[in-house]
């Protein structure tokens, strides 16, 4: 879990909650754009990207992490649900162990469909967030 200064100019900081395969797509997108790990800056836009399957066992940890993110940043982060598992439970919606989407735990602002979504799909979402009002 690390803060990524996504564009290298402080315009958007991303916290990755990397739980499963979709985390690799976020990492590929980070490599493509040259995102740099940094300490959290005092101001600017912050996004949390939940990448992968949320199991019931890990769900409290995900909530604690997003809460801590909001506290540390002093502002609520934009929450992005990357991939089918984070969006709805995906192919594991019927599992005894899986939370049916991270939106069962906290509000999600953007849902990115895919299994996994290509890095370009996440990049497009972050590009929109960077310039959003």
């Amino acid at each position, binding site marked *: 879990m690390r803060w990524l200064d996504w564009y290298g100019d402080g315009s958007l900081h991303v916290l990755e909650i990397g739980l499963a395969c979709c985390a690799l797509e976020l990492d590929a997108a980070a490599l493509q754009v040259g995102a740099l790990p940094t300490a959290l800056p005092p101001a600017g836009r912050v996004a949390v990207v939940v990448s992968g399957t949320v199991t019931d066992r890990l769900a409290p940890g995900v909530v604690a992490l997003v809460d801590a993110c909001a506290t540390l940043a002093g502002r609520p982060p934009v929450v992005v649900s990357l991939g*089918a598992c984070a*969006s*709805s*439970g*995906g*192919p594991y*919606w*019927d599992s005894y162990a899986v939370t049916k*989407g991270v*939106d069962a735990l906290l509000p*999600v*602002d*953007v*849902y*990115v*469909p*895919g*299994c*996994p*979504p*290509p*890095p*370009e*799909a996440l990049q*497009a*979402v972050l590009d929109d967030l960077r310039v959003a009002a």
Partner: protein
Amino acid sequence: MSGPASGHGSIRLVEQNCTSCMVCARECPSWCITIDSHTEPVPDLPAGARERTRNVLDRFEIDWSLCMYCGICVEECPFDALAWEPAHTDAAPSALVLRHGIDELTR
């Protein structure tokens, strides 16, 4: 919406080929395909022919928040009514918006 350089793309519906047979909805492992249909008498039969009915598709919906893009539906359709599409499904502000009906699936 241009196609991405990578990824699995998406799935589109060829509406004129669909017979509402339900095979795709039954084979989908994620249960993400919803189909409604009704039956109608076949029109314009020759004189004296026995009355027949056909299925008419009313609603075909894929919930992209569930779909894992496995392509089983494309493979299983006996009538080639589903096909791979290079463009990826766009992100959305809510999971409900990711339920695409016939209009979005045939665009």
